[in-house]
């Protein structure tokens, strides 16, 4: 009897092997052909010269394109802007996300409705977010200027998107509007895992809402913070749509990705565009890996 069982087992093990391979082939094929292969091709492009279009002989140039983009002032500005987008967006998202989650954590009448409304900005295309917010910042008849003029806070219409720092703040605000739902949900899920008894016990011990928040909620949200930080950073570091709709490729708000787009498709310089894209990809991958490690440490 055991012998027969074994042979049955062998047969089904072989079947499992074959079935496993058949089922993963389409996914692996799609990813290999359309992600991994282009990735290798793209990297090759980034270490080649720009070609005849740029008055060069085609050929291997090593790290020259990388050195060029790292030294190019416009690219450097784009890197600085991107850092500003990321820092501002992520700090706003963490603070506001915790605020939203703490507010919506406990059951109250109409909570279902508020949660449904909450995810709407996330569900909309970011291009549409930009379109919806555009009228707010319009210099001639935008809402922001109208309100401020009306309240006599400013005397003249302000060209919001043209000033350096300010423009980045407004664009980040639009970006945060679309990403905040996702971050809030991450924190809500984190709060769900805190047992209610912890709060009632601390209340018995005389802890007020602020002390509860400071000494119970915040420490217990640490794993969610790591996830929110990762998601927020990865979304903000590749910011593109909101900038494109609100301010096009204007120099004062260019992110790295807008610079990549401009170099590659407006100036048709694939060699340098791809090199800059790989710089951003490398930063992203390092951050992703770093956060994955931090996450593992904080959850185990």
């Amino acid at each position, binding site marked *: 009897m055991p012998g027969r069982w074994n042979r049955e087992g062998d047969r089904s093990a072989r079947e499992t092997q074959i079935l*496993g391979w058949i089922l993963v082939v389409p996914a692996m094929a799609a*990813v290999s052909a359309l992600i991994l292969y282009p990735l290798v091709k793209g990297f090759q492009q980034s270490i080649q010269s720009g070609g005849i279009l740029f008055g060069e002989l085609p050929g291997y140039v090593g790290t020259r394109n990388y050195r060029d983009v790292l030294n190019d002032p416009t690219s450097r500005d784009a890197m600085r802007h991107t850092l500003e987008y990321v820092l501002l967006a992520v700090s706003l998202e963490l603070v506001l996300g915790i605020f939203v989650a703490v507010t919506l954590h406990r059951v*109250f009448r109409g909570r279902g409705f508020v949660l449904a409304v909450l995810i709407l900005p996330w569900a909309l295309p970011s291009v549409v977010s930009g379109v919806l917010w555009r009228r707010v910042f319009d210099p001639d008849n935008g809402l922001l200027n109208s309100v401020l003029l*009306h309240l006599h806070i400013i005397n003249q219409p302000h060209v919001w998107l043209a000033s350096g720092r300010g423009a980045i703040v407004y664009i980040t605000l639009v970006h945060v509007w679309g990403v905040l739902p996702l971050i809030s949900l*991450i924190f809500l899920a984190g709060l769900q895992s805190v047992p209610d008894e912890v709060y009632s016990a601390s*209340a018995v011990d005389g802890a007020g809402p602020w002390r509860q928040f400071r000494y119970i909620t915040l420490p217990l949200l640490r794993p969610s913070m790591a996830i929110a930080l990762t998601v927020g950073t990865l979304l903000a570091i590749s910011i593109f749509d909101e900038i494109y709709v609100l301010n096009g490729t204007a120099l004062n708000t260019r992110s790295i990705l807008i610079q*990549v787009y401009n170099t590659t498709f407006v100036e048709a310089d694939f060699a340098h565009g*791809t090199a800059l894209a*790989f710089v951003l990809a490398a930063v992203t991958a390092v951050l992703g890996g770093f956060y994955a490690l931090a996450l593992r440490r904080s959850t185990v």
Partner: protein
Amino acid sequence: MTTTLGMRVLKALAVTLIVVWSLAPIVLGVTTSLSTQREVNEGPSHWFPHHPTTQAYRALIGGTTGEHSGGTVTQRGEFVQSMWVSAELALLSASLTLVVATMAAYAFGRLRFRFGGFLLAVLVGTMVVPIFVVVIALFKLMANAHLIDTKKGLVLVFVATLTPLATWLLYTQVREMPAEPEEAALIDGCRRWQAFVRVVIPQMSSGIAAVAAILALSVWGEFLIPLLLTQTQNAKPVTVLITEYVGKYTTNYPILAAGGVLALIPPALLALALNKRITGMLAGS
């Protein structure tokens, strides 16, 4: 916990603030789309149009006549055509991705086969690769294959870029599901693939629905990929078309807002209809 009146007022205020923050830009979009360009120029007293009109929607769908367009030019029929393209891309890409990802998720989650763990790591690892790097490299490959400016080409790219995430979301679901129903089917003499089709897929249905919605929403909202890979109305989704209505110096806000409102209706309806499943899946990931 004792809730004082002050706390309850604060909470009501916070909830109101969240609702207003989430809805205000959408409401503003709707009121703008029902205004005329002249009313938009009037300032705060005309945030809500005094004479609501569907003029902007008619100009958007029927084409601008020229003089009243104020920096924005639309062609008759192009907006509706782009809405259809977006819908087609979202449906095709989401369903194809689901088929590919469900198969892979089941295999990685339940079947022990050689190199399974390694292949899963490769697949999930590609999530770290930013899509824009791939698209830049894909541009030349697709041009050589005559896939630029075709819906077919876009669907291929969407399926490839969405498969890792979809597989990961469904894989975690397969791991959390009880294995007993499948084992029972195997003991009853089902072949493995039969158990997958008849038992496991129905078991996964709610997760599949949530992932389907997330995929459709992300294809509908995708901008950079179609911006780079399309040129004409042939395959231009609504997100790309809408950015062309932003004039270089002045913009016709009613027309732009009308486009925004129409483009947000399908994703908003989908998100509202499936909001419990979507929030569950997003919070869990």
